[in-house]
């Protein structure tokens, strides 16, 4: 085995490989519990090449820490002060303003907790009133409500976006008529795209409508469609995955529509190449079990043009390999994460 775990050195499934990657990295960074450390140490004893990999990482890390450091002059703080004075932001810190802000935060959190309680009540007391997928979406919102942190201020104010194309939950809009399973017909190997959406205050019905319209199913790490209870358990770990197989353009359309919703912030894109080599462990089972449902259809969302452009620009900057671009079928792991990580 060489040091490059991304090149398919393991015989285990891709999911197992991802698990090993994460274990090994956390072991190296001393972020594992004792039981997990024992598991990794057994693995290292059985595979000396992995030990060599850790030595390489140690060497790289040491080199990074030895790099010369940059510093600002003593006058820098005066510049900050001057800018603060110029912006006249100091006046926002009168005691009354502070009290008012903290009061409003308490009201805000109270509202969120109340919403979470209502959703939990709906999920567990009146389960028959909601569909499975609605349960899943609710869990996302519950997770967000429970763990929300204060939002970090952004440099720029929120943009005015065109009104999103959102169908009501029980819309009669056709849902991808004439779908065709492209993956099966092309026979090309899928590649990975990982995208992370931060869901701020996504309205349950709106998000559900988008996902339904694009036939996006929420699955667990093994490709199995989750019920509400399982999703809640996973939500506590801070991450949910929406696993789909699609052409890039199709996936982009779905992302654009979600991103275009005023309550959703899209960040942290990882482009083809990032997951391309490690793939996604659930791909095989998901394709087998849900092949028809995992397909997305291209849609024209002209209102999302600006969002799409920004997404592409950010994607371009983050992407590693130009050759990963193209219209071939790609496998996507769409991570939906609450803002409060």
């Amino acid at each position: 085995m060489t040091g490059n775990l991304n090149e398919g050195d393991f015989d285990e499934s891709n999911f197992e490989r991802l698990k090993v990657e994460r274990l090994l990295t956390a072991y190296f960074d001393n972020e594992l519990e004792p039981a997990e450390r024992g598991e990794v140490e057994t693995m290292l004893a059985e595979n000396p090449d992995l030990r060599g990999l850790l030595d390489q990482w140690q060497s790289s890390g040491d080199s990074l820490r030895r790099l010369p450091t940059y510093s600002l002059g003593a006058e820098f703080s005066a510049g900050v002060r001057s800018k603060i004075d110029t912006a006249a932001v100091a006046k926002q810190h009168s005691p009354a303003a502070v009290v008012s802000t903290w009061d409003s935060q308490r009201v805000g959190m109270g509202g969120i907790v109340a919403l979470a309680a209502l959703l939990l009540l709906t999920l567990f007391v009146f389960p028959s009133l909601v569909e499975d997928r609605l349960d899943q979406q609710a869990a996302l919102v519950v997770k967000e409500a429970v763990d929300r942190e204060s939002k970090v201020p952004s440099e720029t104010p929120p943009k005015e976006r065109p009104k999103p194309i959102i169908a009501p939950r029980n819309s009669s809009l056709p849902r991808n008529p004439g779908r065709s399973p492209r993956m099966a017909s092309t026979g090309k190997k899928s590649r990975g795209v990982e995208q992370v959406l931060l869901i701020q205050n996504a309205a349950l019905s709106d998000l559900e409508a988008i996902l339904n319209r694009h036939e996006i199913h929420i699955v667990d790490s093994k490709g199995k469609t989750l019920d509400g209870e399982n999703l809640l358990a996973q939500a506590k770990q801070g991450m949910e995955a929406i696993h789909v197989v699609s052409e890039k353009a199709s996936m982009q359309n779905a992302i654009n529509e979600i991103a275009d919703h005023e309550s959703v912030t899209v960040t942290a894109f990882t482009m083809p190449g990032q997951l391309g080599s490690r793939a996604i462990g659930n791909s095989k089972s998901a394709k087998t079990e849900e092949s028809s449902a995992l397909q997305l259809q291209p849609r024209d969302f002209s209102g999302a043009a600006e969002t799409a452009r920004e997404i592409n620009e950010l994607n371009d900057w983050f992407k590693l390999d130009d050759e990963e671009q193209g219209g071939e079928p790609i496998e996507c792991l769409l991570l939906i994460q609450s803002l409060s990580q």
Partner: protein
Amino acid sequence: MNNPRAKHEDREWICRTIDGDTESFGFLVRKYQDRLYNGMVQILRNESEAEDVVQDAFVLAFSKLDSFQGKSAFFTWLYRIAYNVAITRLRRRKRGVSLDGDDARVRLDFPDSGPLPNDSIEKQEQAVQLYAALDRLSGEHRSILVLREMEELDYDAIAEILELPVGTVRSRLHRARIRLRELLEKVMD
């Protein structure tokens, strides 16, 4: 990061600032300016832009200080602000570059302090190679390596700054380290 005394000290300055003693904010600026600047330089690979980002981050932090709840370290919160500002700048840079057709990535020079004259030729050469590899690393890989290897933040803090689940932090760190080794091998050839 997790030093309780430092956290308490920060909290004191924050409270005083909120109470109207704006001079107290100056202590926070002086305490963290270089550390934040160093991180932003590595992420942006541009000293001038990094200085602007750090200044903007402090101004933003001051204006929103009352929303800081103290659940995380002040520096983590501050770094997250700066990181968001930096990402916005990178997007603008990319947009401008796409119009001009220039290379988006800029090369970063060594700071005035280094490489140190007393360093061996070999060490200086290693530093040059490392800079070249960092220049070629993707933004997200460079960011996470800076946070872990240079800032030595724990996974929870990295997850908060990058707004990622801890599991993603682990796997991204793994890939970033692999990629850095690959690039180092390339630049050494």
